[in-house]
Protein backbone atom coordinates (compact mmCIF):
# COMPACT_ATOMS: atom_id res chain seq x y z
CA UNK A 1 0.00 0.00 0.00
CA UNK A 2 1.47 3.36 -0.96
CA UNK A 3 1.79 6.21 1.50
CA UNK A 4 -1.01 8.16 -0.22
CA UNK A 5 -3.33 5.16 -0.21
CA UNK A 6 -2.64 4.55 3.46
CA UNK A 7 -3.34 8.20 4.30
CA UNK A 8 -6.48 8.09 2.22
CA UNK A 9 -7.64 4.96 4.04
CA UNK A 10 -7.15 6.58 7.43
CA UNK A 11 -9.24 9.55 6.35
CA UNK A 12 -11.98 7.29 4.97
CA UNK A 13 -11.94 5.18 8.11
CA UNK A 14 -12.19 8.25 10.30
CA UNK A 15 -15.10 9.55 8.24
CA UNK A 16 -16.82 6.17 8.49
CA UNK A 17 -16.37 6.15 12.25
CA UNK A 18 -18.26 9.40 12.58
CA UNK A 19 -20.58 8.78 9.64
CA UNK A 20 -23.69 8.52 11.81
CA UNK A 21 -23.46 12.15 12.86
CA UNK A 22 -22.31 13.59 9.57
CA UNK A 23 -25.49 15.58 8.97
CA UNK A 24 -26.53 18.60 11.03
CA UNK A 25 -28.98 17.76 13.82
CA UNK A 26 -32.59 17.87 12.65
CA UNK A 27 -35.15 20.18 14.29
CA UNK A 28 -37.16 17.39 15.93
CA UNK A 29 -34.10 16.23 17.88
CA UNK A 30 -33.46 19.55 19.59
CA UNK A 31 -33.53 19.93 23.37
CA UNK A 32 -34.40 22.75 25.77
CA UNK A 33 -32.41 24.17 28.68
CA UNK A 34 -33.35 21.44 31.19
CA UNK A 35 -31.38 18.73 29.37
CA UNK A 36 -28.24 20.84 29.38
CA UNK A 37 -28.62 21.87 33.01
CA UNK A 38 -28.83 18.19 34.03
CA UNK A 39 -25.94 17.28 31.78
CA UNK A 40 -23.58 19.98 33.05
CA UNK A 41 -24.51 19.49 36.71
CA UNK A 42 -23.78 15.77 36.25
CA UNK A 43 -20.55 15.97 34.30
CA UNK A 44 -18.70 18.55 36.37
CA UNK A 45 -18.90 16.86 39.76
CA UNK A 46 -16.14 14.37 39.06
CA UNK A 47 -13.18 12.58 40.59
CA UNK A 48 -10.83 15.38 39.66
CA UNK A 49 -12.75 17.78 41.95
CA UNK A 50 -11.18 15.87 44.86
CA UNK A 51 -7.74 16.71 43.47
CA UNK A 52 -8.12 20.27 42.21
CA UNK A 53 -9.57 21.91 45.34
CA UNK A 54 -6.74 20.56 47.54
CA UNK A 55 -4.20 21.54 44.87
CA UNK A 56 -5.31 25.18 45.07
CA UNK A 57 -4.94 24.98 48.86
CA UNK A 58 -1.50 23.40 48.51
CA UNK A 59 -0.49 26.34 46.30
CA UNK A 60 -1.18 28.70 49.20
CA UNK A 61 -4.13 30.75 47.94
CA UNK A 62 -5.80 33.14 50.37
CA UNK A 63 -9.54 32.87 51.04
CA UNK A 64 -10.35 36.05 49.10
CA UNK A 65 -8.18 35.05 46.14
CA UNK A 66 -9.66 31.56 46.06
CA UNK A 67 -13.32 32.55 46.21
CA UNK A 68 -12.90 35.65 44.03
CA UNK A 69 -10.80 33.76 41.47
CA UNK A 70 -13.33 30.95 41.28
CA UNK A 71 -16.28 33.34 40.93
CA UNK A 72 -14.68 35.30 38.10
CA UNK A 73 -12.95 32.37 36.37
CA UNK A 74 -16.10 30.26 36.35
CA UNK A 75 -18.08 33.24 35.06
CA UNK A 76 -15.61 33.58 32.18
CA UNK A 77 -16.00 29.86 31.47
CA UNK A 78 -19.81 30.15 31.45
CA UNK A 79 -19.65 33.18 29.15
CA UNK A 80 -17.26 31.31 26.85
CA UNK A 81 -19.75 28.46 26.54
CA UNK A 82 -22.71 30.81 26.14
CA UNK A 83 -21.28 33.45 23.84
CA UNK A 84 -18.68 31.53 21.81
CA UNK A 85 -19.39 27.80 21.77
CA UNK A 86 -23.19 27.50 21.87
CA UNK A 87 -23.87 30.12 19.13
CA UNK A 88 -21.47 28.32 16.76
CA UNK A 89 -23.06 24.97 17.60
CA UNK A 90 -26.60 26.24 17.03
CA UNK A 91 -25.60 27.85 13.73
CA UNK A 92 -23.77 24.86 12.21
CA UNK A 93 -25.31 21.95 14.21
CA UNK A 94 -22.20 19.83 13.52
CA UNK A 95 -19.93 17.79 15.78
CA UNK A 96 -16.42 19.10 16.47
CA UNK A 97 -15.14 16.36 14.19
CA UNK A 98 -17.14 17.49 11.15
CA UNK A 99 -16.62 21.14 11.96
CA UNK A 100 -12.84 20.62 11.87
CA UNK A 101 -13.09 18.30 8.90
CA UNK A 102 -14.83 20.95 6.79
CA UNK A 103 -12.68 23.83 7.98
CA UNK A 104 -9.20 22.35 8.47
CA UNK A 105 -9.22 19.18 6.37
CA UNK A 106 -8.67 15.56 7.36
CA UNK A 107 -5.02 15.72 8.45
CA UNK A 108 -5.53 18.28 11.17
CA UNK A 109 -8.64 16.41 12.26
CA UNK A 110 -6.67 13.14 12.58
CA UNK A 111 -3.92 14.94 14.53
CA UNK A 112 -6.55 16.50 16.79
CA UNK A 113 -8.12 13.07 17.44
CA UNK A 114 -4.81 11.39 18.29
CA UNK A 115 -3.60 14.18 20.62
CA UNK A 116 -7.03 14.30 22.22
CA UNK A 117 -6.89 10.53 22.86
CA UNK A 118 -3.53 10.83 24.61
CA UNK A 119 -4.79 13.62 26.88
CA UNK A 120 -7.99 11.69 27.63
CA UNK A 121 -5.93 8.65 28.69
CA UNK A 122 -3.93 10.88 31.06
CA UNK A 123 -7.11 12.30 32.58
CA UNK A 124 -8.69 8.84 32.87
CA UNK A 125 -5.49 7.69 34.64
CA UNK A 126 -5.79 10.59 37.10
CA UNK A 127 -9.34 9.48 37.85
CA UNK A 128 -8.29 5.84 38.36
CA UNK A 129 -5.66 7.13 40.77
CA UNK A 130 -8.41 8.98 42.67
CA UNK A 131 -10.55 5.82 42.86
CA UNK A 132 -7.66 3.64 44.02
CA UNK A 133 -6.86 6.01 46.91
CA UNK A 134 -10.31 5.07 48.28
CA UNK A 135 -10.30 1.36 47.33
CA UNK A 136 -6.94 0.95 49.07
CA UNK A 137 -8.58 1.95 52.38
CA UNK A 138 -10.24 -1.48 52.43
CA UNK A 139 -6.78 -3.08 52.48
CA UNK A 140 -4.90 -1.83 55.56
CA UNK A 141 -1.59 -3.18 54.23
CA UNK A 142 -1.71 -1.01 51.11
CA UNK A 143 -0.55 2.55 51.71
CA UNK A 144 -1.44 5.40 49.37
CA UNK A 145 1.64 7.09 47.89
CA UNK A 146 2.96 9.94 50.05
CA UNK A 147 3.71 13.50 48.90
CA UNK A 148 7.33 12.75 48.04
CA UNK A 149 6.91 9.27 46.51
CA UNK A 150 7.97 8.90 42.88
CA UNK A 151 5.97 5.68 42.52
CA UNK A 152 3.42 3.85 44.65
CA UNK A 153 4.12 0.44 46.22
CA UNK A 154 3.78 -2.72 44.11
CA UNK A 155 0.53 -3.81 45.87
CA UNK A 156 -0.95 -0.33 45.17
CA UNK A 157 -0.01 -0.72 41.50
CA UNK A 158 -1.68 -4.13 41.40
CA UNK A 159 -4.80 -2.56 42.87
CA UNK A 160 -4.65 0.14 40.18
CA UNK A 161 -4.35 -2.62 37.59
CA UNK A 162 -7.47 -4.33 38.95
CA UNK A 163 -9.49 -1.09 39.13
CA UNK A 164 -8.22 0.00 35.69
CA UNK A 165 -9.09 -3.39 34.17
CA UNK A 166 -12.63 -3.24 35.56
CA UNK A 167 -13.03 0.24 34.12
CA UNK A 168 -11.66 -0.89 30.74
CA UNK A 169 -13.98 -3.92 30.66
CA UNK A 170 -16.99 -1.77 31.49
CA UNK A 171 -15.97 0.76 28.85
CA UNK A 172 -15.86 -2.06 26.30
CA UNK A 173 -19.22 -3.47 27.39
CA UNK A 174 -21.19 -0.29 27.03
CA UNK A 175 -21.05 3.42 27.44
CA UNK A 176 -24.69 4.47 27.51
CA UNK A 177 -25.68 2.71 30.72
CA UNK A 178 -22.59 4.00 32.49
CA UNK A 179 -23.32 7.52 31.33
CA UNK A 180 -26.80 7.15 32.77
CA UNK A 181 -25.43 5.77 36.04
CA UNK A 182 -23.04 8.72 36.39
CA UNK A 183 -25.98 11.12 36.05
CA UNK A 184 -27.80 9.30 38.84
CA UNK A 185 -24.71 9.64 41.04
CA UNK A 186 -24.27 13.37 40.40
CA UNK A 187 -26.80 14.94 42.85
CA UNK A 188 -25.72 12.59 45.63
CA UNK A 189 -22.01 13.24 45.00
CA UNK A 190 -22.47 17.02 45.09
CA UNK A 191 -24.20 16.73 48.47
CA UNK A 192 -21.51 14.39 49.83
CA UNK A 193 -18.91 17.06 48.98
CA UNK A 194 -20.93 19.75 50.76
CA UNK A 195 -21.81 17.66 53.78
CA UNK A 196 -18.26 16.38 54.23
CA UNK A 197 -16.90 19.93 53.93
CA UNK A 198 -19.24 21.12 56.69
CA UNK A 199 -18.62 18.10 58.91
CA UNK A 200 -14.86 18.64 59.17
CA UNK A 201 -15.16 22.34 60.05
CA UNK A 202 -15.27 21.63 63.84
CA UNK A 203 -11.80 20.06 63.42
CA UNK A 204 -10.73 23.55 62.35
CA UNK A 205 -12.38 25.16 65.40
CA UNK A 206 -15.51 26.22 63.53
CA UNK A 207 -18.72 25.54 65.46
CA UNK A 208 -21.29 27.77 63.76
CA UNK A 209 -21.99 29.14 60.30
CA UNK A 210 -20.89 32.59 61.45
CA UNK A 211 -17.39 31.34 62.22
CA UNK A 212 -16.81 29.95 58.74
CA UNK A 213 -15.48 33.09 57.04
CA UNK A 214 -12.94 34.01 59.76
CA UNK A 215 -11.73 30.39 59.71
CA UNK A 216 -11.47 30.50 55.91
CA UNK A 217 -9.16 33.50 56.19
CA UNK A 218 -7.07 32.44 59.17
CA UNK A 219 -6.91 28.65 59.36
CA UNK A 220 -7.96 27.10 56.04
CA UNK A 221 -6.65 29.32 53.26
CA UNK A 222 -3.59 30.54 55.10
CA UNK A 223 -1.82 31.86 52.02
CA UNK A 224 1.20 29.65 52.73
CA UNK A 225 2.07 27.11 50.01
CA UNK A 226 2.93 23.56 51.04
CA UNK A 227 6.58 22.51 50.53
CA UNK A 228 7.30 22.01 46.83
CA UNK A 229 4.32 24.08 45.60
CA UNK A 230 4.50 27.55 44.06
CA UNK A 231 2.38 30.45 45.37
CA UNK A 232 -0.99 31.03 43.65
CA UNK A 233 -2.84 34.35 43.59
CA UNK A 234 -6.29 35.51 42.46
CA UNK A 235 -5.05 35.52 38.84
CA UNK A 236 -3.86 31.90 39.02
CA UNK A 237 -7.19 30.71 40.42
CA UNK A 238 -9.19 32.77 37.93
CA UNK A 239 -7.02 31.62 35.03
CA UNK A 240 -7.27 28.00 36.08
CA UNK A 241 -11.05 28.07 36.57
CA UNK A 242 -11.38 29.53 33.07
CA UNK A 243 -8.73 27.31 31.50
CA UNK A 244 -9.60 23.92 32.95
CA UNK A 245 -12.44 23.37 30.48
CA UNK A 246 -11.05 25.59 27.73
CA UNK A 247 -10.96 22.71 25.25
CA UNK A 248 -14.69 22.35 25.72
CA UNK A 249 -15.75 26.01 25.56
CA UNK A 250 -13.35 28.28 23.67
CA UNK A 251 -11.78 25.15 22.15
CA UNK A 252 -15.31 24.39 20.86
CA UNK A 253 -15.34 20.63 21.47
CA UNK A 254 -18.74 21.07 23.17
CA UNK A 255 -20.32 22.10 19.86
CA UNK A 256 -20.88 18.34 19.69
CA UNK A 257 -23.27 18.72 22.65
CA UNK A 258 -24.79 22.13 21.97
CA UNK A 259 -25.69 21.25 18.38
CA UNK A 260 -28.75 19.69 20.03
CA UNK A 261 -29.73 22.98 21.71
CA UNK A 262 -32.89 24.74 20.58
CA UNK A 263 -31.36 28.12 21.42
CA UNK A 264 -27.81 29.35 21.94
CA UNK A 265 -28.85 30.55 25.40
CA UNK A 266 -28.60 26.92 26.56
CA UNK A 267 -24.89 27.71 26.85
CA UNK A 268 -25.70 29.43 30.15
CA UNK A 269 -26.69 25.99 31.53
CA UNK A 270 -22.95 25.45 32.00
CA UNK A 271 -23.27 27.67 35.09
CA UNK A 272 -24.81 24.70 36.92
CA UNK A 273 -21.72 22.59 36.24
CA UNK A 274 -19.28 25.35 37.07
CA UNK A 275 -20.80 26.67 40.27
CA UNK A 276 -21.67 23.24 41.71
CA UNK A 277 -18.62 21.29 40.55
CA UNK A 278 -15.90 23.90 40.16
CA UNK A 279 -16.98 26.20 42.98
CA UNK A 280 -18.81 24.40 45.80
CA UNK A 281 -17.03 21.06 45.32
CA UNK A 282 -13.57 22.67 45.08
CA UNK A 283 -14.20 24.71 48.21
CA UNK A 284 -15.45 21.60 50.06
CA UNK A 285 -12.50 19.46 48.98
CA UNK A 286 -10.06 22.23 49.94
CA UNK A 287 -11.64 22.39 53.42
CA UNK A 288 -11.30 18.60 53.69
CA UNK A 289 -7.63 18.89 52.79
CA UNK A 290 -7.09 21.61 55.43
CA UNK A 291 -8.84 19.51 58.09
CA UNK A 292 -6.61 16.57 57.18
CA UNK A 293 -3.55 18.75 57.89
CA UNK A 294 -2.65 19.21 54.26
CA UNK A 295 -3.23 15.60 53.22
CA UNK A 296 -4.26 15.74 49.55
CA UNK A 297 -5.10 12.03 49.12
CA UNK A 298 -8.74 11.98 47.90
CA UNK A 299 -9.80 8.68 49.50
CA UNK A 300 -8.39 9.57 52.91
CA UNK A 301 -9.86 13.08 53.09
CA UNK A 302 -13.30 11.86 51.95
CA UNK A 303 -13.24 9.08 54.56
CA UNK A 304 -12.43 11.70 57.18
CA UNK A 305 -15.30 13.94 56.10
CA UNK A 306 -18.08 11.47 55.30
CA UNK A 307 -17.03 7.98 56.43
CA UNK A 308 -17.85 5.06 54.17
CA UNK A 309 -20.20 7.24 52.05
CA UNK A 310 -17.26 9.55 51.37
CA UNK A 311 -14.95 6.72 50.34
CA UNK A 312 -17.66 5.28 48.07
CA UNK A 313 -18.17 8.76 46.61
CA UNK A 314 -14.48 8.94 45.69
CA UNK A 315 -14.56 5.51 44.05
CA UNK A 316 -17.70 6.39 42.08
CA UNK A 317 -16.49 9.90 41.21
CA UNK A 318 -13.28 8.50 39.75
CA UNK A 319 -14.91 5.54 38.11
CA UNK A 320 -17.89 7.25 36.45
CA UNK A 321 -15.64 9.87 34.89
CA UNK A 322 -12.81 7.52 33.94
CA UNK A 323 -15.18 5.26 32.04
CA UNK A 324 -16.60 7.68 29.46
CA UNK A 325 -13.18 9.31 29.20
CA UNK A 326 -11.60 5.97 28.33
CA UNK A 327 -14.41 5.20 25.90
CA UNK A 328 -13.84 8.49 24.09
CA UNK A 329 -10.09 7.90 24.07
CA UNK A 330 -10.68 4.48 22.49
CA UNK A 331 -12.87 6.06 19.84
CA UNK A 332 -10.18 8.60 19.00
CA UNK A 333 -7.34 6.04 18.95
CA UNK A 334 -9.32 3.78 16.65
CA UNK A 335 -8.41 6.16 13.84
CA UNK A 336 -4.74 5.21 14.04
CA UNK A 337 -5.22 1.47 14.46
CA UNK A 338 -6.43 0.16 11.10
CA UNK A 339 -7.55 -3.38 11.77
CA UNK A 340 -8.07 -3.39 15.51
CA UNK A 341 -11.46 -4.11 16.96
CA UNK A 342 -12.96 -1.62 19.41
CA UNK A 343 -12.25 -3.81 22.46
CA UNK A 344 -8.56 -4.07 21.61
CA UNK A 345 -8.28 -0.33 21.15
CA UNK A 346 -10.05 0.35 24.44
CA UNK A 347 -7.78 -2.08 26.29
CA UNK A 348 -4.71 -0.44 24.74
CA UNK A 349 -5.97 2.93 25.97
CA UNK A 350 -6.73 1.25 29.31
CA UNK A 351 -3.13 0.03 29.63
CA UNK A 352 -1.89 3.60 29.12
CA UNK A 353 -4.49 4.77 31.66
CA UNK A 354 -3.25 2.30 34.31
CA UNK A 355 0.38 3.32 33.77
CA UNK A 356 -0.65 6.97 34.21
CA UNK A 357 -2.59 6.11 37.37
CA UNK A 358 0.62 4.69 38.87
CA UNK A 359 2.50 7.98 38.49
CA UNK A 360 1.56 10.15 41.49
CA UNK A 361 3.16 13.18 39.83
CA UNK A 362 0.30 13.24 37.32
CA UNK A 363 -2.19 14.11 40.07
CA UNK A 364 0.25 16.38 41.87
CA UNK A 365 0.59 18.38 38.66
CA UNK A 366 -2.96 17.93 37.41
CA UNK A 367 -3.50 21.70 37.25
CA UNK A 368 -0.48 22.02 34.91
CA UNK A 369 -1.61 19.08 32.76
CA UNK A 370 -5.15 20.42 32.50
CA UNK A 371 -3.70 23.85 31.73
CA UNK A 372 -1.57 22.54 28.86
CA UNK A 373 -4.52 20.49 27.62
CA UNK A 374 -6.71 23.60 27.46
CA UNK A 375 -4.10 25.78 25.80
CA UNK A 376 -3.15 23.08 23.29
CA UNK A 377 -6.61 22.58 21.81
CA UNK A 378 -8.00 26.07 22.27
CA UNK A 379 -6.51 27.70 19.11
CA UNK A 380 -8.53 25.41 16.83
CA UNK A 381 -11.69 26.58 18.61
CA UNK A 382 -10.61 30.16 18.03
CA UNK A 383 -10.21 29.37 14.32
CA UNK A 384 -13.71 27.85 14.22
CA UNK A 385 -15.14 31.01 15.79
CA UNK A 386 -13.51 33.19 13.12
CA UNK A 387 -14.44 30.82 10.31
CA UNK A 388 -18.12 30.69 11.25
CA UNK A 389 -18.77 34.32 12.28
CA UNK A 390 -16.11 36.67 10.97
CA UNK A 391 -14.92 35.42 7.56
CA UNK A 392 -18.37 35.70 5.88
CA UNK A 393 -18.76 39.25 7.23
CA UNK A 394 -15.43 40.19 5.63
CA UNK A 395 -16.42 38.77 2.25
CA UNK A 396 -14.42 35.56 2.67
CA UNK A 397 -15.78 32.01 2.63
CA UNK A 398 -16.21 29.66 5.57
CA UNK A 399 -15.15 26.01 5.28
CA UNK A 400 -12.63 26.93 2.58
CA UNK A 401 -11.05 23.47 2.65
CA UNK A 402 -14.34 21.69 1.96
CA UNK A 403 -15.26 24.12 -0.79
CA UNK A 404 -11.91 23.89 -2.56
CA UNK A 405 -11.37 20.16 -2.05
CA UNK A 406 -8.00 20.72 -0.39
CA UNK A 407 -6.72 18.41 2.34
CA UNK A 408 -5.00 20.82 4.70
CA UNK A 409 -5.75 24.30 5.97
CA UNK A 410 -2.36 25.93 6.41
CA UNK A 411 -3.90 29.02 8.04
CA UNK A 412 -5.44 26.83 10.76
CA UNK A 413 -2.28 24.75 11.14
CA UNK A 414 -0.01 27.80 11.49
CA UNK A 415 -2.44 29.61 13.81
CA UNK A 416 -2.57 26.48 16.00
CA UNK A 417 1.18 25.87 16.14
CA UNK A 418 2.26 29.51 16.52
CA UNK A 419 -0.29 30.49 19.17
CA UNK A 420 0.26 27.40 21.34
CA UNK A 421 4.03 27.66 20.71
CA UNK A 422 3.91 31.28 21.91
CA UNK A 423 2.16 30.32 25.17
CA UNK A 424 4.50 27.42 25.73
CA UNK A 425 7.58 29.57 25.08
CA UNK A 426 6.45 32.37 27.40
CA UNK A 427 5.88 29.87 30.20
CA UNK A 428 8.78 27.52 29.55
CA UNK A 429 11.48 30.20 29.34
CA UNK A 430 11.15 30.83 33.09
CA UNK A 431 9.97 27.42 34.30
CA UNK A 432 11.99 24.79 32.43
CA UNK A 433 15.76 24.75 32.90
CA UNK A 434 16.45 23.46 29.38
CA UNK A 435 14.45 26.26 27.79
CA UNK A 436 15.93 28.84 30.11
CA UNK A 437 19.40 27.71 29.08
CA UNK A 438 18.47 28.12 25.42
CA UNK A 439 16.82 31.52 25.78
CA UNK A 440 18.81 33.29 28.50
CA UNK A 441 21.91 34.13 26.38
CA UNK A 442 20.00 36.15 23.80
CA UNK A 443 16.73 37.32 25.31
CA UNK A 444 16.44 41.12 25.59
CA UNK A 445 15.71 42.73 28.97
CA UNK A 446 12.10 43.48 28.14
CA UNK A 447 11.45 39.80 27.37
CA UNK A 448 13.26 38.66 30.50
CA UNK A 449 11.08 41.04 32.52
CA UNK A 450 7.89 39.32 31.31
CA UNK A 451 7.28 36.36 33.59
CA UNK A 452 3.95 34.69 33.05
CA UNK A 453 2.32 31.56 34.33
CA UNK A 454 0.66 29.05 32.05
CA UNK A 455 -2.67 29.90 33.66
CA UNK A 456 -2.48 33.53 32.48
CA UNK A 457 -2.24 32.66 28.80
CA UNK A 458 -5.87 31.92 27.89
CA UNK A 459 -6.74 35.41 26.70
CA UNK A 460 -3.44 36.24 24.93
CA UNK A 461 -3.37 32.89 23.14
CA UNK A 462 -6.98 33.22 21.96
CA UNK A 463 -6.36 36.73 20.63
CA UNK A 464 -3.18 35.59 18.88
CA UNK A 465 -4.93 32.57 17.36
CA UNK A 466 -7.88 34.56 15.97
CA UNK A 467 -5.59 37.29 14.61
CA UNK A 468 -3.29 34.80 12.89
CA UNK A 469 -6.13 32.75 11.44
CA UNK A 470 -7.83 35.87 10.15
CA UNK A 471 -4.66 37.18 8.54
CA UNK A 472 -3.60 33.84 7.03
CA UNK A 473 -7.12 33.17 5.71
CA UNK A 474 -7.14 36.58 4.09
CA UNK A 475 -3.78 35.80 2.46
CA UNK A 476 -4.96 32.38 1.31
CA UNK A 477 -8.30 33.48 -0.08
CA UNK A 478 -6.86 36.58 -1.76
CA UNK A 479 -4.39 34.41 -3.70
CA UNK A 480 -6.73 31.53 -4.38
CA UNK A 481 -10.38 32.55 -4.06
CA UNK A 482 -12.66 29.61 -3.32
CA UNK A 483 -14.80 30.18 -6.42
CA UNK A 484 -11.90 29.64 -8.82
CA UNK A 485 -10.84 26.41 -7.16
CA UNK A 486 -14.12 24.75 -6.49
Amino acid at each position, binding site marked *: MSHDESQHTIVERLDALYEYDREPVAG*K*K*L*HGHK*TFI*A*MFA*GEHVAGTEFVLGPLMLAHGVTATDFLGGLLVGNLLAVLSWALLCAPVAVRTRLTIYWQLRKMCGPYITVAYSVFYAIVLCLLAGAMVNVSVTAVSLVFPGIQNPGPQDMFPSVPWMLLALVVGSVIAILAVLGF*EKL*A*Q*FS*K*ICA*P*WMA*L*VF*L*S*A*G*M*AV*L*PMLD*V*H*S*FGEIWPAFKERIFTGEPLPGFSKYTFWHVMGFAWLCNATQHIGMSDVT*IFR*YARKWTSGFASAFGMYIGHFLAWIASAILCAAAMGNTTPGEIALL*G*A*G*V*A*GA*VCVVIAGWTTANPTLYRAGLAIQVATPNWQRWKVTFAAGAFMVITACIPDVNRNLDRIVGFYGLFFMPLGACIFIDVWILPRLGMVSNYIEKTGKLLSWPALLAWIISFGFSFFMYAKDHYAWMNKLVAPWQPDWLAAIKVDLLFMVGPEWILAVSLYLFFSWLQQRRHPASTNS
Partner: protein
Amino acid sequence: MNNILKLISFTGLALTLIPGALVLIGVIDNSLQYTLMLIGMVAWFSSAPFWMHSTSLDDN
Protein backbone atom coordinates in the same frame (compact mmCIF):
# COMPACT_ATOMS: atom_id res chain seq x y z
CA MET B 1 -45.06 3.85 43.19
CA ASN B 2 -42.97 6.54 41.57
CA ASN B 3 -43.84 8.98 44.33
CA ILE B 4 -42.76 6.53 47.04
CA LEU B 5 -39.47 5.96 45.25
CA LYS B 6 -38.93 9.71 44.95
CA LEU B 7 -39.70 10.15 48.64
CA ILE B 8 -37.06 7.53 49.50
CA SER B 9 -34.57 9.22 47.17
CA PHE B 10 -35.07 12.70 48.60
CA THR B 11 -34.89 11.31 52.12
CA GLY B 12 -31.58 9.76 51.08
CA LEU B 13 -30.33 13.14 49.84
CA ALA B 14 -31.48 14.81 53.05
CA LEU B 15 -29.64 12.16 55.07
CA THR B 16 -26.56 12.95 53.02
CA LEU B 17 -26.60 16.73 53.45
CA ILE B 18 -28.13 17.45 56.84
CA PRO B 19 -25.79 15.35 59.04
CA GLY B 20 -22.81 17.45 57.93
CA ALA B 21 -24.58 20.64 59.02
CA LEU B 22 -25.58 19.02 62.33
CA VAL B 23 -21.96 18.10 63.05
CA LEU B 24 -20.96 21.69 62.32
CA ILE B 25 -23.37 23.11 64.90
CA GLY B 26 -22.50 20.39 67.41
CA VAL B 27 -25.81 18.50 67.48
CA ILE B 28 -24.38 15.10 66.48
CA ASP B 29 -20.90 13.60 66.39
CA ASN B 30 -18.96 12.29 63.40
CA SER B 31 -19.73 8.64 64.01
CA LEU B 32 -23.52 9.22 63.84
CA GLN B 33 -22.99 11.46 60.81
CA TYR B 34 -21.09 8.66 59.01
CA THR B 35 -23.92 6.21 59.77
CA LEU B 36 -26.66 8.59 58.60
CA MET B 37 -24.79 9.37 55.41
CA LEU B 38 -24.35 5.65 54.76
CA ILE B 39 -28.11 5.13 55.17
CA GLY B 40 -28.69 8.11 52.87
CA MET B 41 -26.42 6.56 50.25
CA VAL B 42 -28.26 3.23 50.39
CA ALA B 43 -31.63 5.02 50.17
CA TRP B 44 -30.55 7.07 47.16
CA PHE B 45 -29.02 4.25 45.14
CA SER B 46 -31.81 1.80 45.93
CA SER B 47 -34.51 4.19 44.65
CA ALA B 48 -33.16 6.83 42.25
CA PRO B 49 -32.25 4.48 39.35
CA PHE B 50 -35.90 3.42 39.11
CA TRP B 51 -37.35 6.87 38.49
CA MET B 52 -34.46 9.08 37.42
CA HIS B 53 -34.11 8.59 33.70
CA SER B 54 -31.53 10.83 32.13
CA THR B 55 -32.25 12.16 28.68
CA SER B 56 -29.79 11.13 26.01
CA LEU B 57 -29.17 13.78 23.39
CA ASP B 58 -30.08 11.31 20.68
CA ASP B 59 -33.54 10.74 22.20
CA ASN B 60 -36.75 12.13 20.64
